[in-house]
């Protein structure tokens, strides 16, 4: 649920802040001075709009909830601890800013955590390496 909320609301906030202001900024290339000032004002309004900021905030909160829930669920399955601790980093970095450098740090740390979990999964999943009685794919566990 949190992943869906993240996808919808963060995407809405980013689209409003990014795409709409980009279209406005491109339109200020060669207009009359009065029109340029009006477009600049519109961009300022879009950037500071509380509704857009609310979408961003709820999206960021959903990111935090989704990663925490994933960490707890993976902990219960006996996933390796190191990547789970790494999952705390994208939560931490996301609370600052999306742009350089926190946005890239957020996603890089998510990548490292996911890579660690994927490597562990590869070792433990039957058919892709060894076996593990705890960390079982859902399709196996339901049999």
């Amino acid at each position, binding site marked *: 649920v*949190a*992943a*869906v909320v*993240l*996808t919808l609301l*963060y*995407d809405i906030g*980013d*689209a409003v*802040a*990014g*795409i709409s*202001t*980009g*279209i406005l*900024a*491109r339109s*200020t*290339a060669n207009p009359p001075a009065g029109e340029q000032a009006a*477009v*600049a004002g519109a*961009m*300022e309004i879009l*950037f500071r709009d509380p509704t857009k900021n609310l979408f961003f905030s709820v999206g960021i909160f959903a*990111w935090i909830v*989704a*990663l925490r*829930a*994933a960490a707890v*669920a*993976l*902990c*219960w*399955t*006996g996933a390796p601890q190191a990547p789970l601790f790494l999952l705390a980093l994208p939560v931490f970095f996301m609370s600052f800013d*999306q*742009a*350089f*450098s926190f*946005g*890239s740090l*957020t*996603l*890089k740390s*998510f*990548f490292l955590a*996911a*890579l660690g*979990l*994927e490597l562990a*999964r590869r070792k433990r999943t039957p058919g*892709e390496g060894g076996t593990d*009685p705890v*960390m*079982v*794919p*859902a*399709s196996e*566990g*339901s049999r």
Partner: protein
Amino acid sequence: MSSNPVLRRLVLLGTPSVTTILMLLHPLPHEDITGELVPTASWWTALHTIQFVLFAIMGAAVWLLTKDYVALPRRPAKWRRWS
């Protein structure tokens, strides 16, 4: 999606990698928004259009982290009582 390991790893590892690189090129208009945005308007629009798709796939990546696993076996006993 998760039954195909290549697609799974592409979403789970490829999406954050590509987005990380794009984030490094993300302009930072903070003080003079118009003055800083206008020179990079085309890139700014293109970046956020690409990000619109990538953030949606990031949601799928977060979901894929846990999708294939059952959670119950190692829950602490005090939590197991409640289920």
